[in-house]
């Protein structure tokens, strides 16, 4: 029961807040209720920690029926840190929301809490069946929320494309399940056959936009800072958890280097774009793409701890940056500490991420550069003058706001505590530090990739041309199908049907050995 408590709390709180809004309660009361619900949810996630691993069957599908699996939850050392990240983010958004007038609206809090609830459900999924159910619920909620908040038709189209690729990822997990059946092994997260894990990688890669590289949201939807952060970070968290689990299966050696190459391109492209955008909110999709590519590469090498490390760094450090809009010393201090963590120094949460370089080869160089660029961009946005304050905040706001950021920072350490001492290549830390200093120095001298060159690189490496080619191919197939339909539905349709039948029989005889 404890396992589902956080989810229930995060689902019940928005309903309570909506009830309060209906009875015209003050915004302060609504905020307090939202914060209390999120706090209790976070506490219930913390209560799980000493009891790991924990499982819970949500619905018993196998009772009186031939279903082999039932929806179930599993909290273990892979899923719990993600659950903690999402629960912390939910509370942090509400706490830091007091510092942003635009976020002082209960609709944003209820949305954040509901998305977080489904996010926790997805990361705690105990088997692929639960994962696809949770992913779908999350995707539908995201689709509805984005479509009701985005006015620009072209961005709405991006939302539909994003939803479609997510669904394709879901279908790939179902295909992986079918493949596992073919091998005679029911698919569970406890043992993912090596022949099946590539489908999981592809599913997670599609959802993250990493493999093949695609960015539905090159321009971010116009969302509030807090709600937008939840919406854009929870979904990747739900996909990264699959990566962490599939990492043990690895990938066939024959396809390893081409995939790594594609990931290196994705990481570099994202990191360069992250460095060039005017502010952190515009750059949010590139940040997600960047750290996801690094986590993905770690998964391919079977480095589960590195996947966890990159994922949590991306989620926690990213949230800290995206939620810190108010000027103030506390913002700067917490932000600088987060940036230091992101560098991957020993005994910090990100250090285990450098285990990606344990089997170092030339293809890893772009990852080192991408890591450094992401860190430089992070520091740059941190030092950027924040949004001007709307009014002088009250004292309690000045206390609550940094508490939200501090919570993220502390939770990051707590979530990764067991792997703080994991050995990772120290040379990689040094290289990152040197690269950050060099690239930071170049940045200060305003030396950057020239705009025309970046435009060309952007055209090639954003893989938007691939989308155009695919669209063109689809149109061609669509035209061919229309012609075939016209033939079959025309006056000579019956004759064409007979011709097709003869053709099919010939084919079947051919493949059936002429029997």
């Amino acid at each position: 029961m404890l396992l589902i408590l956080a989810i229930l709390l995060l689902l019940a709180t928005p309903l309570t807040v909506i009830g309060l809004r209906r009875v015209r309660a003050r915004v302060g009361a609504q905020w307090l209720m939202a914060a209390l619900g999120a706090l209790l949810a976070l506490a219930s996630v913390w209560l799980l920690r000493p009891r790991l691993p924990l499982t819970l069957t949500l619905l018993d599908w196998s009772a009186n029926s031939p279903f082999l699996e039932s929806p179930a939850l599993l909290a273990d050392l892979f899923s719990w840190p993600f659950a903690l990240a999402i629960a912390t983010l939910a509370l942090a958004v509400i706490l830091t929301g007091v510092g942003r007038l635009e976020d002082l609206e209960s609709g944003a809090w209820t949305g954040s809490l509901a998305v977080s609830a489904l996010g926790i459900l997805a990361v705690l999924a105990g088997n692929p069946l639960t994962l696809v159910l949770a992913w779908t619920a999350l995707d539908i909620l995201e689709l509805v929320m984005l479509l009701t908040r985005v006015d620009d038709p072209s961005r709405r189209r991006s939302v539909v494309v994003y939803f479609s690729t997510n669904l394709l990822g879901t279908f790939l997990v179902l295909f992986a399940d079918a493949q596992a059946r073919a091998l005679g092994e029911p698919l569970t997260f406890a043992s993912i056959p090596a022949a099946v894990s590539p489908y999981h990688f592809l599913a997670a890669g599609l959802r993250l936009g990493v493999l093949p590289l695609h960015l539905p949201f090159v321009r971010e939807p116009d969302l509030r800072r807090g709600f937008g952060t939840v919406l854009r970070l929870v979904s990747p968290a739900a996909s990264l958890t699959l990566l962490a689990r599939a990492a043990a299966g690895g990938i066939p050696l024959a396809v390893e280097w081409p995939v790594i190459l594609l990931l290196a391109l994705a990481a570099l492209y994202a990191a360069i774009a992250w460095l060039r955008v005017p502010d952190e909110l515009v750059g949010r999709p590139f940040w997600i793409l960047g750290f996801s590519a690094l986590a993905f590469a770690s998964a391919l090498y079977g480095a589960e701890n590195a996947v966890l490390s990159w994922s949590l760094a991306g989620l926690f450090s990213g949230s800290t940056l995206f939620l810190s809009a108010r000027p103030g010393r506390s913002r700067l201090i917490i932000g600088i500490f987060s940036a230091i963590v992101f560098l991957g120094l020993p005994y910090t949460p990100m250090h285990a991420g450098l285990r990606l370089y344990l089997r170092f080869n030339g293809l890893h160089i772009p990852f080192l550069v991408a890591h450094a660029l992401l860190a430089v961009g992070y520091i740059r946005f941190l030092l950027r003058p924040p949004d001007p304050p709307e009014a002088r905040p009250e004292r309690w706001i000045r206390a609550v706001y940094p508490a939200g950021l501090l919570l993220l920072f502390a939770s990051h350490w707590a979530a990764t505590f067991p792997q703080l001492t994991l050995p990772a290549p120290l040379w990689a830390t040094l290289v990152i530090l040197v690269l950050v200093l060099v690239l930071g120095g170049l940045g200060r001298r305003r030396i950057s990739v020239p705009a025309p060159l970046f435009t060309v690189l952007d055209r090639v490496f954003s893989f938007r041309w691939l989308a155009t080619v695919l669209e063109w191919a689809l149109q061609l197939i669509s035209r061919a199908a229309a012609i075939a339909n016209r033939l079959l539905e025309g006056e000579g349709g019956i004759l064409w049907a007979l011709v097709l039948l003869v053709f099919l029989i010939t084919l079947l005889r051919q493949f059936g050995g002429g029997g």
Partner: protein
Amino acid sequence: MSAPVLWILIPAGVGLVLALFSGSPRFTFTFALVLAFLLAWAALLLPIDQPLAVGGFAFKLTPTFFFLGRSLDLTVSDQPLLLGVWGLVFLWLAGGLFAQPPRLFAPAVLVAVALLTAALAVTPFLYAALLFELTAMLFVPLLAPQGRGSRGVLRMLAFMTIGMTFILFVGWMLEGAAASPGIPVLTLRAGVLLGLGFAFLMAVFPFHSWVPMLMEGADLYSAAFLLFMLPGAVALFGLELVDRFVWLRQSPTLFTLLLAGGAIMVLVGGLLAGLERRLDRQLGFAILLETGMSMLAVAVLQSTGLALFFALLLPRGISLLVWAASLANLSQQPRVDLSLAGVKGLAGRYALRFAAILMAIFSLAGLPLLSGFPFRMLLIQNLAVDSPWVAGAVLLGNFGLMASGLRIIASIVSEAPRPDLSVAVTGDELERARTPDFPAWLFISVAGAGSLVVGLFPQWFWPLFDRLPAIFTQLGH
């Protein structure tokens, strides 16, 4: 009284009488709804061939009714099927209040379901083919009002007649094959002709062209009802033949052909639905996909039994009903064209109807959480054991169908409402469109909630499907 009188002759007779009152559609719909409910209730509570006492009145529903030297048989094992059929008829009639089909719809539904029940109950079984043809002919006035959609209707009649001829022709051959199973040439010929007959009757690829044609021109709701009921009944008839003839039942070729044919149907139906630009034709292709799913469910019956075949029918019946009713209602709205271009920017104006259409599409495509998902997943898992690539093809076909839903979403949200329409549609019309009447709202909400309940709690419904295969003496065990 005999069971065939109760579940065949009474609805057929009432349907014919109600046709005389087609000028008052509200009356005919209400009457038909009440009758469908009573027949479903009777199937649940009145066991066939057992003495019953209601008040002081004692009677027994006998299983057989003789008619012109032929017999109609309905036994106690048929009752779960009768309950399901009349339950679904009740829902389709209720959906008709929202879809506003032609006035003769309710009477025609009663007669059609009676004919299809008779087709499954008649001895000798050959008469079933005639009854299928009769059912299709009965719907002609509904499908092509004022000659609209007549091309599709003509094609349907042509294919039905060819199919019927094959079945009739093969009938005596089958009897011969049963009498002398040692003659493989005879059974091979009978099998091939039978396969062709079923391919025509069930619109199996490449004889599927009449289905999208029918959906494009004919009355949507009537066509969808016919295309749900008729292939379902034909499939049950086919299973009865497999159950009856041991050489068919033990033929590995039959199951291989069902596997290949089913996979092709799912792929063709799903991918063509995804590429289609008209919303009504998309529904037609989805029906083809569903026929393929049924074929695949029969193909794996050795591992799962027939319960899965029946389990796929419930989400199909409800999803097609919701899809067809909402689409039919949408087509009656002012200045709405059922093409992807024609529905651009209409998300806000007809939100509830589009939500219902999308829910139905996604449910049929096996989107997790919705009613179609658990049973499709079970089918795919069973297919994967012996033929993983068929399982892959099924997933691909289903994703194709899902793509049709995604294209609808992209269309309805991608552009602001067309300025010419905004001006042309009056304030009253707009207000009416945005707030569908209470029955419509209730119908769509209940269907949505029902889909979620089946999708999340499939174990509650499985025992219902598990009882249905008992109608077959051999396949049911």
